[in-house]
């Protein structure tokens, strides 16, 4: 009986426990509450994935109102994969948070931190699960507003300006989405995504719908930090608390990409998005630019967190590149990379969190000779870095393999060259850190730090382990991704 309500519970559980978390006075209790909820959320996510795998797309009518009149929750394979990513990262990151937050955030704020964290989790899950265009806007705002708060809790004053910059850009993005939804509603009279797509066929060839498409796409692109709309991202990731960077890098932008997938394939359809609007070509150009420019910029960063942030912009380029091919293989490759990159980036940011806990800094010059003092942390960083570069036996290799394959099938061999070039750039920036940490001698006045506590190392290593597992046996992820991509393409061609 409970199993029929899983889609609603998936979102309502973290949403309703956030206020409870606010009332808990002791930071420890708030942490325990958030941790329990995040694990329950993961359990629900796993059950949902099984359900979707068994029965196909799930639809849940909230309030029991039939679809165009009420709000529908709709989970297909692509959605299930996204839920799994978000829930897994949430569940992995929270055990880490306990210690990290204790150090980075003032004690009286930690209750608020967990409240906002749960709200953000609920918001992101809500975006994925919903089948209603306006409901998507509402949950987007829940996740955005809580992210602004989470970022602003970072320990330097630049966290405040980063949060403000994100707030301004994020709100512009959300308002663009709102305008687009308004235009869509104007011509179709409905807000349900599937219903919109059906009624769109009659009016698709109007200037209004073209503008609606442009506005929604630009709005979502700001949210997912597509080059050149990524300007908020480097600051936000650099100055946010370590846990928040790890969580966002793995989930927030990825959910944005998922929304883009939904728009291109489910709502507007391939014929409109890729043939009439040429969004494939535009996205391909921007993705290629992101891969090269952001990787180049990353090489010149001295703050390792900032370096990884730029690397994220580049990696988003890879994912978008796959999607821009609009083929089953391309979209599947994009989704595989989405999944793998979520794991890798989260692990990398977590290991930086360990370093920050001990050193109080993530500047490159402070990390000289660190490998001797924090061998496990640095090993995690290197393992993640290898995967970022895309060496065989890592998950990064798998996603690049599929990506290159998809590009070559469609005859885009220059893209394959670009992917290899960008990987070379990744090698350079990761090598800078490795060289500093392993082969340089620590300066005279540098503190003798200990290895990070197990509560922080284990989450990072769990992700690294998953990364190597996928590197060896990618059949599960690739199977889900191909199935999801198949459904999306099927929805898109009509």
């Amino acid at each position, binding site marked *: 009986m409970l199993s029929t309500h899983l889609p609603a519970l998936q979102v309502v559980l973290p949403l309703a426990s956030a206020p409870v978390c606010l009332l808990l006075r002791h930071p420890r209790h708030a942490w325990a509450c958030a941790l329990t909820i995040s694990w329950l959320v993961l359990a629900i996510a796993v059950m949902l994935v099984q359900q979707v795998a068994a029965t196909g797309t799930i639809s849940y009518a909230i309030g029991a109102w039939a679809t165009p009149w009420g709000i529908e929750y709709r989970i297909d394979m692509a959605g299930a994969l996204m839920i799994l990513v978000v829930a897994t990262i949430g569940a992995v990151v929270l055990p880490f948070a306990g210690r990290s937050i204790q150090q980075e955030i003032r004690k009286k704020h930690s209750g608020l931190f967990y409240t906002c964290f749960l709200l953000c989790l609920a918001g992101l899950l809500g975006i994925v699960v919903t089948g209603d265009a*306006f409901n998507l*806007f*509402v949950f987007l*705002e829940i996740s955005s*507003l809580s992210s*602004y*708060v989470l970022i*602003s809790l970072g320990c330097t*004053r*630049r966290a*405040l*300006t980063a*949060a*403000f910059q994100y*707030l*301004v850009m994020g*709100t*512009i993005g*959300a*308002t663009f989405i*709102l*305008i687009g939804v*308004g235009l869509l*509603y*104007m011509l179709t009279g409905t*807000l349900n995504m599937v219903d919109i797509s059906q009624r769109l066929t009659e009016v698709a060839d109007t200037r209004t719908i073209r503008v609606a498409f442009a506005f929604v796409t630009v709005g979502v692109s700001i949210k997912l930090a597509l080059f050149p709309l990524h300007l908020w991202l480097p600051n936000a990731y650099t100055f946010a608390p370590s846990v928040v960077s790890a969580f966002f890098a793995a989930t927030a932008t990825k959910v944005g990409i998922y929304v883009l997938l939904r728009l291109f394939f489910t709502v507007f359809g391939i014929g409109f998005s890729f043939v009439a609007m040429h969004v494939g070509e535009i996205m391909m150009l921007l993705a290629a630019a992101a891969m090269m420019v952001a990787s180049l910029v990353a090489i010149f960063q001295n703050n390792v967190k900032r370096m990884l942030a730029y690397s994220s912009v580049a990696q988003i380029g890879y994912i978008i590149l796959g999607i821009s091919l609009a083929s089953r293989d391309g979209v599947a490759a994009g989704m595989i990379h989405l999944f793998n990159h979520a794991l890798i980036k989260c692990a990398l940011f977590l290991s930086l969190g360990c370093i920050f806990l001990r050193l109080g800094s993530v500047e490159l010059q402070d990390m000289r000779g660190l490998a001797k003092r924090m061998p496990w942390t640095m090993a995690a960083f290197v393992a993640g870095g290898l995967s970022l570069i895309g060496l065989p036996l890592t998950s990064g290799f798998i996603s690049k393999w599929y990506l290159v394959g998809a590009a070559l099938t469609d005859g885009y061999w220059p893209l394959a060259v670009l992917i290899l070039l960008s990987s070379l750039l990744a090698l350079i920036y990761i090598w800078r850190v490795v060289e500093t940490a392993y082969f340089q001698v620590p300066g005279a006045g540098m503190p003798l730090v200990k290895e990070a506590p197990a509560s922080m190392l284990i989450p990072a290593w769990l992700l690294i382990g998953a990364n190597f597992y996928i590197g060896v046996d990618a059949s599960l992820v690739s199977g889900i991704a191909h199935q999801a991509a198949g459904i999306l393409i099927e929805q898109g061609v009509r």
Partner: protein
Amino acid sequence: MSELLGHYNYWIVIVLMMTGFYIVIARPNLIKKVIGLFIFQTSVFIFFISIAKVEGGTAPIIEEGISVYSNPLPHVLILTAIVVGLATTALGLALVVRIREAYGTINEDDIHVQDEER
């Protein structure tokens, strides 16, 4: 000509939206930016409510003897959006207050200069 008469309403609303948008991206003063967002969003609300208007209709509160009502759905959406807008404004202003305390200025250019120095 009828084309023009039917749409000038929306055009004015678009000018309003763009006024707000311009304030957000052109003004370095942070309070002005938040106010710009507020104007931008309020104008989008006007746009939605304009969509909802039905010629000769009245407010969608059912009453005996009235048959034409304006469209209630955009009203509902905008009620929600107004609340979201207020939440954003409140958070933005709170951030401005903290930025002023940390930097001593609320001018974006001055803040950049201070960040570069460190």
